[in-house]
């Protein structure tokens, strides 16, 4: 009973965070800030949904498979997010910024030029 309640709390939190993540993708202004909102769905929303489902499954093979899903997402999601950010910079998307602290922007411009030449 207690496990059931805990699992439902986790699943509701996960669902709520997924909705917040989707709202964030709609509300935020540009591609980079939207990626931050998508990050919620990638990490805590997925994590608490999987944890909730693991509690429902108990000590079965399903739990192990859910844990493996979490493990693979743990490695795959930052890699894809980074690839997306780098591709956006290379494609010449200018992020909307309040403050740009990179005085020497050679690194970013190098990536951008590479994207244009190829």
């Amino acid at each position, binding site marked *: 009973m207690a496990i059931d309640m805990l699992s439902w709390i986790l699943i509701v939190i996960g669902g709520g965070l997924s909705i*917040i993540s989707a709202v964030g993708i709609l509300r935020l202004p540009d591609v980079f*800030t939207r990626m931050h909102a998508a990050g919620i769905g990638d990490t805590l929303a997925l994590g608490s949904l999987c944890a909730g489902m693991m509690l429902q499954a108990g000590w079965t093979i399903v739990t192990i498979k859910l844990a493996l899903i979490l493990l693979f997402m*743990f490695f795959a999601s930052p890699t894809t997010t980074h690839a997306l950010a780098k591709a956006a910079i290379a494609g010449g998307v200018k992020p909307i*910024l309040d403050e740009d602290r990179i005085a020497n922007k050679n690194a970013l411009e190098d990536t951008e030029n590479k994207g244009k030449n190829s």
Partner: protein
Amino acid sequence: MIRKLGLALALFALWLLLSGIFEPLLISLGIISSLFVAWLAHRMEVIDHEGFPIHMGPRAITYWPWLIWEIIKANIDVALIIIKPELKISPVLFRSPASQKTEVGQVTYANSITLTPGTITVTVHGDTVDVHALTTGAADEVISGRMDKRACQMEGNS
């Protein structure tokens, strides 16, 4: 050699966990295929400290829980920003040192930054990372260098 054996064992464990059927035929098929994949990887020469970083295992046990706690805190911050009607964001692009010695260590650090909502690693350039942050608060968190230090500890001296 330890790495190759470790890879074969890890692959076989994965096979067992995913199949969940403990019949002699399937288990022997699993042994054959995991040894075959380990042999292929050996032929391709991808079993090195980068492809299969087994030496980081023990230190990952303390690093990951810490990282998960950081991720939870950052998630709450970003979720609150999105919910609040005024949408208080102050996007920053900044450069921060990555003092890890090996490339695996730098990737660990850069991926940890990206996993934490509110900060994304855009490029890794030599021993610095360029990070896009949703708020100046999230940016200061990276600049404070706590995560950098933890990632260095995780990397160890190898």
